[in-house]
């Protein structure tokens, strides 16, 4: 049995101010829904920096390894040919010719790997249901979600605290 407050603001700065205020009061803000990234909101409501960038680097390295080793296998190990007299004896001798493909393939892996991770982590995949509390949050409204269960305060205290901010609309839902 918990209460969910969806506090709606008509301006990102108002929401930011409100968030600071509430957090200051020790209220935990579950989630913020906005039509565009509100700069500076993350630290306020305690969102950690994403590690996507690192994954992309890892993907790139994987791609690089695959590309080089595959080209070594095909051009030098499995079936070395005399192509225009160019050496096919060792990876080092052939490396210059391999650089373009290696680069391209690394980029390919990095980009796609990263995007796939991003979509999976977000849970944004084709056919997924939209979960924003109010359609206007993709237009011009900014919603803060606060729940009783994630807060020590009881519903009334929360409500008063919220009402003190420059909110535009407030909707309260009860969920078992």
């Amino acid at each position: 049995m918990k209460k969910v407050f969806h506090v709606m603001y008509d301006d990102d700065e108002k929401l930011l101010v409100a968030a600071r205020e509430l957090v200051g009061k020790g209220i935990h803000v579950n989630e913020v829904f906005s039509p565009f990234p509100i700069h500076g909101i993350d630290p306020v409501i305690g969102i950690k920096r994403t590690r996507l960038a690192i994954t992309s680097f890892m993907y790139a390295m994987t791609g690089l390894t695959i590309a080089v080793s595959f080209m070594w296998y095909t051009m030098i190990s499995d079936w070395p040919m005399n192509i225009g007299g160019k050496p096919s004896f060792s990876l080092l001798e052939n490396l210059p010719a391999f650089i373009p493909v290696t680069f391209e393939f690394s980029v390919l892996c990095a980009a796609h790997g990263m995007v796939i991770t991003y979509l999976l982590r977000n849970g944004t995949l084709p056919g997924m249901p939209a979960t924003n509390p109010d359609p206007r949050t993709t237009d011009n409204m900014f919603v803060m979600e606060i729940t009783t269960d994630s807060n020590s305060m009881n519903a009334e205290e929360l409500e008063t605290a919220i009402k003190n901010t420059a909110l535009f609309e407030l909707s309260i839902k009860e969920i078992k």
Partner: protein
Amino acid sequence: MQRESAIREPLILGHKTYKDITDDVVGPIMGPAPLGWKIMITISSIIAIYGIGSILYLIGTGVGVWGLNKTVGWAWDITNFVWWVGIGHAGTLISAVLLLFRQKWRMAINRSAEAMTIFAVIMAAVFPGIHMGRIWLAYYVFPLPNQFGSIWVNFNSPLLWDVFAISTYFSVSLVFWYVGLIPDFATIRDRMVKPLPKKIYGILSFGWSGRAKHWNRFEELSLVLAGIATPLVFSVHSIVSMDFATSVVPGWHTTIFPPYFVSGAVFSGFAMVQTLLLVMRKAYKLEDYIHIKHVEYMNIVMIVTGSIVGVAYLTELFISWYSGVEYESYAFINRFSGPYSIAYWTMMTCNVISPQLFWFKKIRRSFVATFIISIVVNIGMWFERYVIIVTSLHRDYLPSSWGEFIPTATDVGIFIGTLGIFLTLFLTFTRFFPVLALNELKTILKSSGESYRNKQVK
């Protein structure tokens, strides 16, 4: 919330609110198709069909239906390929490089520029395919295991590098573009009332809800993608240029090709962006978002790249003389004095002279002038590739095999056809996709929106 100096021109005119931005972009999509759009797409799709017909004729009969011969093995096919790839460079450059440089003005144009990029690259990809003698064996260029030994591909060949470069560039641009589209699809989804479109946009939007965490990841992603895409942009056309630079053909065998091709690509890319945007802003009443300031910025980019290209032309000439290699020097003498000198001088006027006009503020800030020059540049850049390919090939080492190239109806038909297909795709895009990056625009509304700036000034 960042502010910027008041003397800068606002990037979003009119006293827009977040809602206005949404409505300005989503409105046309929800409304009925305008008559002009219907007419244009009819015309372009007719051309497209003609082009597809020519392609089928080509594939059914043989490459001989083109004007190629034993001396000139590539002509319009690869010319068009390089031209389209070049055009396909603006979008990713705008969204990637300008993002890295935090250029706010890009936000009004990057969405459509990227779309243009993707369609252009698709057109480009057509030509290496159909120029093959045996397109039904095109899969040989992929290193697939097989029962022939296995026999693998030749990783020494620039043409194979192309395969990887183009496919990488295309797919990366595509995801980059789409990732940006997802939040805007969500916006449309939530505005749509008709059930079917709502469902479709619902699927397209991947259930985006604009959570703070997602936005956080979103920004990280676009930053890193931009970081990856930037070297990619430069690598792709460098690799295309290596098709020529690594060969022995006098006029191709040139070390400055990579930078020269890349700047040429950006040059032509921006020209094409101008051509399309200037039409689009009128058709879709986007004057407030894409206005003279954006055009001016792009024109400045064109001056820079155009000048680089010009310098490259002159360097080529100088080196050909300075090298003292008779074949090299003859190749270039032949370019400007030989049978194809008209092409050369067209290229020179269009690519070297015309962009220099942008030094004049009046011209730089005139929509009409920009539009005309952008088209001139597109023509010029096509001729650049034609000059490089045909005039180098038709007279190389052995005078006995010096020849000539005369295009056939099929050559022309396929080129025009690709223009048609390209336009059809782009028109479809403008009709059903958010032509502006909504979420990004909204982030700069307060820093660069007219109304808000005025507040600051007060």
